[in-house]
């Protein structure tokens, strides 16, 4: 809008450099996943052997499965617990509200590594517990719930409390009021909270690394242990992750954009007519 041609040109140059900086490493990573040799700097020819190697690598497959299973279970549990807690909190005394939200701040503000070692000490202090899948799952649920509560609380504050009371005055049980009055109103917040919980679990490295045991790894731990020597299998795995996320994000972001355009046009037509 405002700004001379020269400035706009400089701005474009800056944006191009930014995109190169952001995407060159990722593009190289993808490129060398199709290399026919083990080198990550000399391209010797096209091949899909590293993808085949990935599919034959039982450790890698187990890590992928662990990551997905833990992400789903921890998302479901942390979303349910977090939502119910947030609803309860919104009706609780200010003192309780303040106590819970300040304790919840701890894992959010603390560096990952501090949360990680604190959970590691906890799990190691209980003799009956074997570190592995279970502890990783518990840890993921534990670090997700505060974020779920944090995401849902503001939405609940906007709710009209009279609506729930009205529902119950009209004969709804508390459960019915919860399911048919409160939950539908905060549904968008619940969805974004569950997305946050899912991505946090899917991407976590530090906490998983400290609380796992018995050879149980997730994708992050796998990449970490494999990256100590050159191994294009990681490139193949990373390419699949990058590809999956890109498709997902493009769908999530572009679809509303197209829809929005259509709606805009509709509105314009309505205004015109």
């Amino acid at each position, binding site marked *: 809008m405002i*700004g001379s041609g020269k400035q706009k040109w400089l701005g474009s140059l800056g944006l191009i450099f*930014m995109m190169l900086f*952001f995407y060159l490493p990722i593009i190289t990573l993808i490129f060398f996943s199709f290399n026919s040799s083990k080198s990550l700097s000399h391209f010797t020819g096209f091949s899909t052997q590293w993808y085949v190697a990935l599919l034959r690598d039982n450790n890698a497959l187990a890590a992928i499965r662990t990551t997905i299973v833990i992400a789903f279970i921890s998302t479901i549990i942390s979303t349910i617990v977090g939502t119910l807690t947030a609803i309860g909190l919104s009706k609780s005394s200010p003192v309780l509200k303040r106590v819970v939200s300040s304790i919840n701040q701890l894992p959010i503000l603390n*560096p990952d*590594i501090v949360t990680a070692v*604190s959970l590691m000490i*906890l799990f190691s202090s209980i003799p009956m517990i074997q570190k592995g899948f279970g502890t990783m799952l518990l840890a993921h649920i534990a670090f997700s719930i505060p974020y779920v509560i944090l995401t849902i609380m503001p939405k609940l504050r906007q709710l009209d409390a009279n609506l729930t009371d009205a529902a119950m005055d009209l004969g709804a049980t508390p459960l019915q009021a919860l399911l048919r009055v409160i939950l539908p109103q905060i549904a968008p917040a619940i969805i974004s909270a569950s997305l946050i919980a899912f991505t946090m679990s899917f*991407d976590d490295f530090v906490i998983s690394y400290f609380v796992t045991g018995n050879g149980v790894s997730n994708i992050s731990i796998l990449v970490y242990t494999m990256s100590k020597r050159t191994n294009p299998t990681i490139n193949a795995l990373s390419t699949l992750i990058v590809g999956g996320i890109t498709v997902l*994000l493009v769908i999530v972001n572009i679809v509303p954009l197209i829809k929005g355009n259509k709606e805009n046009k509709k509105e314009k037509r309505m205004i015109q007519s």
Partner: protein
Amino acid sequence: MNVYRRLVYPYLVWMGIFIVIPMLLIVLYAFTAKSSNQVVSLRFTLENFQRFMDPVFLSILVKSLRLALVTTLLCLLIGYPLAYGITRRSEKAQAILILLVTLPMWINMLVRTYAWISLISDKGIINNLMSYFGLPAIQMMYTDGAVIMVMVYNFLPFMIIAIYTVLSKLDQSLVQASYDLGANRFQTFLRVIFPLSLSGVISGITMVFLPAVSTFVIPQLIGGGNYSMIGTFIEKQFINMGDWNFGSAISIVIAVIIMLSMQIANYFDKDPEDMQLKGRNL
């Protein structure tokens, strides 16, 4: 009275087990001496903190703070103009640019960091290109510069998004008014646009500084096994040395530093609008 209140109780128990007790355990370990036998003998001491006062260990803390500060500063200097540049584009272009900035954030940090290794390693792509042009190879892996660059790479999107969010909501009529009243572009930026975007700058700074100061992945992968930052140092105490007491003490030091910097950030971030909202809640 209200039936829904009871919904909080299960989480109170959970929170006690998974947040309060673990934090208390860290404090307990930090203030007690390492027990040599199996029976945990509680001997309260400040030894662990005293040990950390050793110049060798303190230098690790100072280095972490220094690298995190440099990273934050670079992210701000690069990120602000870029965020500003994005707001100058059409709405559609903005949506696409922001999608392109956020996309790398969704990719696992391990993968993003790993991606740099094949570029900057001694026989990597950049050195191949250098030798192709007859230039001497440079060692980039295992240097402070490489660690900073990869940290900037990982955390720059947070800075851009934080600043962009505020700048895109900025009331353009204020900028227009500033021009109308005779301010030039530089004055307008310095006295109108920048002060109004300060809340974004501060949240960007915290979003970069906090993960940067305690990062564990980046120094480990880019800095190599002997490269020490506070995050890797804590890991070493817990995993390699088995000295949980000393490790806990360092964890507390870093947690306190972070809590303090959050307080400082909150102090500076007194957005008038935000204050109004808080006032209404009271």
